């Protein structure tokens, strides 16, 4: 990945100013401000219940919020959810999902094939019911689904959850490829600080009482993490990509 300083010279794909979200009587997010340069990646980290998924829902425009969420003109969002409302044992194939998405965004069959190629998923595996796919295959299918229609920004809510270690590694490599080779902007939620330190251009730290924003070298430091999680948190640092 490019260094954060290089990324900061690019125009922004997303600018968020003083974003607040209230769910019922609870203010889940308050006065949150950050930006995401084009063709960079932002990792959102924080303890459970910090409002990370709520932030994604606000960014996707599916819940009301106060403040400003400004996507660059021409932005096309793809969303990969953490949890599916869809039961996995339904007689729905990957092809059913991809066709439905293609119909929604007026994408051609070639664009669907291109999305599958981008995530490295072969056509025959999309003919099986989704319940027959492995965790890694299903996650690739969801990313391909999100990409259909020439999406240029991906929101991924804990994409590696429930995937084995090799699958996680392949997924991380795929996201790097999408960002670097295809100039996609990637915003992802992760609990794996090692992955965040290795792959993210910038980090948004989120808890109910504290938030910070910056490159991994300033966000993933003991004093910030202690404050974010309320206890010391360690992680393994790899060499930069």
């Amino acid at each position, binding site marked *: 990945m490019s260094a954060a300083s290089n990324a900061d010279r690019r125009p922004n794909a997303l600018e968020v100013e003083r974003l607040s979200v209230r769910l019922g009587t609870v203010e889940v997010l308050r006065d949150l401000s950050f930006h995401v340069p084009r063709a960079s990646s932002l990792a959102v980290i924080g303890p459970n219940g910090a409002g990370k998924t709520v932030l994604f829902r606000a960014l996707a425009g599916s819940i009301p919020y106060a403040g400003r969420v400004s996507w660059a003109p021409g932005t096309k969002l793809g969303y990969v959810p953490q949890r599916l*409302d869809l039961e996995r044992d339904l*007689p729905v194939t990957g092809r*059913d999902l991809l066709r*439905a*998405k293609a*119909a*929604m965004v007026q994408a051609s069959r070639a664009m669907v094939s291109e999305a599958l190629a981008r995530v490295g998923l072969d056509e025959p595996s999309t003919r099986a019911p989704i319940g027959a796919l492995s965790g890694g295959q299903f996650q690739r299918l969801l990313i391909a689904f999100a990409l259909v229609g020439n999406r240029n920004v991906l929101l991924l809510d804990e994409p590696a959850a429930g995937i084995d270690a090799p699958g996680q590694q392949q997924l991380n490599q795929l996201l790097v490829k999408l960002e670097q080779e295809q100039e996609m902007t990637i915003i992802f939620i992760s609990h794996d600080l090692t992955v965040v330190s290795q792959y993210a251009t910038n980090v948004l730290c989120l808890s109910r009482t504290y938030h910070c924003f910056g490159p991994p070298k300033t966000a993933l430091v003991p004093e910030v993490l202690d404050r974010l999680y309320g206890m010391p948190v360690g992680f393994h640092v790899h060499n930069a990509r």
Partner: protein
Amino acid sequence: MSTTPAEIASLALSVGVATAAGLVGCFAVMRRMTLAADAISHVALPGIGVALLLRINPLAGALATLLLGALLVWALETQTRIATETIVGVVFSVALAVGSLMASGEELIDALFGGPTSLSAPELVAGLLGAAAVIVFILKAKHRLVVSLISPEVAATSGIAVARLDLFFLLAFALTVALGLRYLGALLMGSLIIIPAATARRLAKSLGAMLWLSVVVAIASTVGGIYAGQVLGRATGPLIVALAGVIFFVSLLRPSPR
């Protein structure tokens, strides 16, 4: 089997309603509305009761309260974010209680289980148009309904107006129930929506196959039930649902493809 033009027209309407029920049922099952489907049909009762008091067509009263009930569920769901199953359970159980207070004796039995009725030409045309409207809606909205199954955020980023789609689906569901009240009644119509779809869900390997199978089972149960009713001299509604139930249990003998 049917011979007079009136009986053929009645059968055509029954097949149209079964087709609508088979299609709506697939998405009701996938949206986990199985129990809600049964409860929704109960809201027809107060409408039938009011219509009988006002001496207007009972089906018009049922349709009015079903559509109002669907609107109420949708409004509560979007405003309170309480699960559909919970809202439907509360609203439609109350409707059943109110409906049973307003109708009595034979009227109540007919309302609950359907009864022999002859169709006027306007009723037949309205019924066929209603069934066609539901079928066209489901086939046109099929892709949007599938994408909205994944998650509300995925639907929103795919350009789907989720709340509006939910409303239209509930209205299509309510209209399908209203169309089937004539021969199945408020208690059994939900079954014609759910049982064929549950059978198809078990046997199908893809969405297209599920839709086809559900329609085929719904039509076979309906036509078979009507025929059995004529042969045995019994009410057709319970026979239709019993036949659908038999097909479902027979489907259990086949190993699930998934």
